[in-house]
């Protein structure tokens, strides 16, 4: 089944594309470092989101050409970026006033685990090593809508959507939507509610890759994304 899954599941770019479709025109958005940064590439035509980065910049754009980086102009992932018209700089306390104060509309983050009550684990494997939290705990407690993009299962085949997180929490009851490599799932009343799934996977198979019960409220539509 796992091999079959690999042939049908969405690529990271496709997951990012799907998440980008839900960002409205004029929304203020923070993208977690790494994979979530990819969402910015897929803003739908005619909509303009404003991207915030924790290190003190609102309104940044694409990466500069190689060799044209200015290392004072970076994002939270410490990658060089560029400025769009209307951008602004501010210090870290003001930056997190935006985050904690509920001024950002959307945060899109990666996850180790998401529980059916919206708990998120994405900062520590809990196995020793070196912990590093960054701005994740501020984002999940401050941004109006916290969404997760993630593979549906781990590389070892374990579900990432679970009844209860076994890994150290980033935040409690904070996630409201999960975009996975197989489905789009809302979290509502401490339940996973399936909204979209790939046409090529059956309900039973999808449930089997999910660590908690998938509820169905209304229609489940096909999760359709372009080749990227």
């Amino acid at each position, binding site marked *: 089944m796992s091999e079959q899954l690999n042939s049908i599941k969405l690529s990271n770019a496709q997951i990012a594309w799907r998440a980008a479709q839900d960002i409205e025109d*004029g929304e203020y958005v923070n993208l977690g470092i790494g994979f979530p940064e990819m969402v910015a590439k897929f803003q739908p035509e005619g909509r303009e989101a404003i991207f915030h980065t924790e290190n003190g910049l*609102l309104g940044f754009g694409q990466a500069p050409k190689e060799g044209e980086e200015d290392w004072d102009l970076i994002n939270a992932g410490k990658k060089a970026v560029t400025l769009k018209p209307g951008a602004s*700089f501010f210090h870290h306390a003001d930056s997190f*006033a*935006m985050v904690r104060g509920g001024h*950002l509309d959307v945060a899109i983050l990666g996850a180790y685990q998401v529980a059916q009550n919206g708990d998120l684990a994405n900062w520590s494997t809990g196995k020793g090593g070196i912990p590093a939290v960054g701005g994740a705990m501020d984002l999940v407690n401050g941004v109006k809508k916290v969404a997760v993009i993630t593979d549906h299962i781990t590389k070892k085949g374990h579900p990432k959507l679970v009844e209860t997180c076994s890994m150290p929490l980033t935040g409690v009851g904070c996630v409201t939507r999960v975009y996975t490599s197989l489905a789009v799932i809302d979290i509502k009343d401490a339940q996973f509610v399936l909204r979209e799934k790939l046409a090529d996977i059956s309900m039973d198979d999808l449930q089997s890759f999910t660590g908690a019960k998938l509820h169905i409220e209304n229609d489940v539509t096909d999760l359709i994304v372009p080749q990227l």
Partner: protein
Amino acid sequence: MNKIQSSLSEAVSQIKDGATVMIGGFGGSGAPLELIHALIDTGAKDLTIVNNNAGNGDVGLAALIREARVSKLICSFPRSADPKAFSERYLAGKIELEIVPQGTLAERIRAGGAGIPAFYTPTSFGTEVAEGKPVEKFEGRSYVQERWLKADFSIIKAFKGDAMGNLIYRMAGRNFNPLMAMAAKHTIVQVNHVVELGALDPETIVTPGIFVNSVVEVSNPQQEEILNREGAYYPPLNAPLSNNEAGA
């Protein structure tokens, strides 16, 4: 994205009876006089107002109070050269007053904008202003717990603004304005100049547009001190109430 609105009346039209409204300015400096007058014109009443002061003379906040639109005032210093409007209503028991030390007022508003529900300050410890508030010792010194202040609306004044709501201020007219911009669900700004997107240096923007909902240009704003020296009165006597247009 375009946050520019064409008229003052449109900008304040969402403010309804019973709203909590922060009004920027320190005395007349940085006070959004034309927005306050537009708010008077809406007839909205039973307002809770947050401002450092309580108005002066017969214009701006003083006029809003005199017209009986304010049921509660949260401020640090309700005295001025001519505080008649507030004094009369306060001494008649017609307006509630919450006195907050000035720095605590500023910090409570910032806390509201920054998602900090409470903080501790040495200010007011041992005074009647601290009565009823939790006190805690840190490192051997006593501090008073203060709570955030938030509002339904902030009406503020800036010097220049763009379509995304980025703002810069003018001199000490900055005062409470950038803080109040952060602390309201809906922030309305009057600016002397609307400028092209990109015209404001990203390094010098004081209020990033994320804190702003509406921007309206008032190119030659009136100054409270000057109006009061002239004995001005709002709404103008012998004139019908009319909507105040942008730039008027």
